[in-house]
């Protein structure tokens, strides 16, 4: 319970910022020590405020050297460590420590305030506890992009480098709303925005400056899965893909990184891949790809 004690002690000492948000339909309260507030709150800044009683309370404080030494973070392997302890789950990393109390609906985290950390390192302390918390509620955090037009969502699946972020950003030009380009939530046919995206953040100094702030959506109904591939072709082609192709694009990276428990999450993704139509989008000109995204929804009657 050291993470709980150290995080509470740090928050008791310092000034904290408080936000109440709705994440994947769940009221969440974030209490963050001011020193790390910008780093922690920025990825959630686009989500709608909530006035409901929080189901999940997240408390985050800065990690100092003595706390890191007490927690033994220097000896944690590169992969991190997930440790069940006294009915809670600890997730330790070199630069962060988090504790999830599933029954109480509480996450406490300590993270080093280090500008040299990569963005995915900064997001790390909350990803694992959030993925477990939401998995308990049937929401899988999947590795994919998500855009929506008039409440009709297209889930963009593919490995890193496939063009998910490019296609999601380009879709804004055709009137789509943006929900994410790397980690989004999925429960049955509903898709949710979870973390903000680096592609919508102009810099770490201006984390709330997004290119299209009015075009961020919190949730959508999934209509199809799109599997982009950057080919530098002269024209964009969209062709039907099999459920197997969709599952292969969606599941491995999602499950290896975030979605738990693996067998349950894979079964849910397989059901999604069976039920939703899937399409390969071989990308040439980006603007043309965005048009194809809009036309796809029109063909689907959405």
């Amino acid at each position: 319970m050291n993470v709980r004690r150290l995080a509470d002690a740090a928050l008791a000492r310092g000034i904290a910022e408080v936000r109440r948000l709705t994440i994947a339909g769940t009221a969440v309260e974030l209490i963050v020590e001011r020193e790390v507030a910008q780093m922690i709150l920025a990825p959630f800044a686009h989500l709608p405020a909530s006035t409901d009683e929080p189901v999940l309370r997240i408390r985050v404080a800065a990690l100092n050297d003595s706390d890191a030494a007490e927690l033994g973070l220097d000896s944690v392997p590169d992969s991190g460590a997930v440790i069940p302890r006294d009915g809670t789950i600890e997730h330790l990393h070199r630069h962060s420590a988090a504790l999830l109390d599933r029954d109480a609906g509480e996450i406490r985290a300590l993270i080093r305030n280090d500008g040299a950390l990569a963005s995915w390192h900064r997001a790390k302390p909350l990803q694992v506890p959030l993925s477990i918390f939401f998995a308990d509620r049937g929401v899988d955090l999947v590795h994919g992009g998500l855009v929506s037009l008039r409440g009709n969502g297209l889930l963009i699946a593919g490995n890193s480098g496939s063009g998910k972020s490019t296609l999601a950003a380009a879709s804004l030009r055709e009137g789509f709303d943006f929900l994410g380009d790397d980690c989004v939530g999925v429960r049955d046919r509903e898709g949710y925005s979870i973390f903000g995206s680096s592609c919508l953040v102009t810099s770490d100094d201006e984390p709330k400056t997004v290119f299209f702030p009015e075009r961020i959506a919190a949730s959508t109904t999934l209509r199809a899965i799109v599997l982009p591939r950057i080919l530098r072709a002269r024209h964009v082609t969209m062709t039907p893909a099999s459920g197997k192709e969709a599952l292969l694009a969606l599941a491995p990276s999602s499950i290896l990184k975030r979605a738990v428990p693996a067998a349950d999450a894979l079964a849910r993704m397989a059901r999604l891949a069976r039920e939703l139509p899937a399409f390969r989008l071989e990308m040439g000109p980006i603007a043309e790809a965005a048009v194809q995204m809009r036309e796809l929804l029109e063909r689907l009657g959405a």
Partner: protein
Amino acid sequence: MLNPSDYLEVNLERAAGDVIDGEAIIINLETGVYYSMQGIGGDIWAMIGARRSFGSMLDEIVAHYDVDRSVAQTDLETVAGQLLDEGLIRFTGSGSAYGARNAETKKQYATPQLQVYRDMQDLLALDPPAPGMNQIAWQRSGSK
């Protein structure tokens, strides 16, 4: 060489799999390597998931597919050996008892083949998954 009385099961601490379009999609949670098992691979994975014996699985395949028993046995031994080598399945002491009944119309047989995908290696080298996460969440999901 597998014996008819050898029971097989999915190595749940290490692997997750499902069947779609008749093929099995399997993920090695420790290495990040993932697989598709084509041909009658979906049926084989489903039978391993049901903790069937090697003999019972062979009976089931011969009963439902247009294939010689010796061919089916060789193919099943080959693919089961690959799955064992990859750590995706394991032997278990006991399992489910099934009696295979001949289908009225036998389906076309297609040799089970394990296709291996290793393109997650770079991603995982940069940001490896934390060991133990799957088991923790798995225990909880059964109790809720």
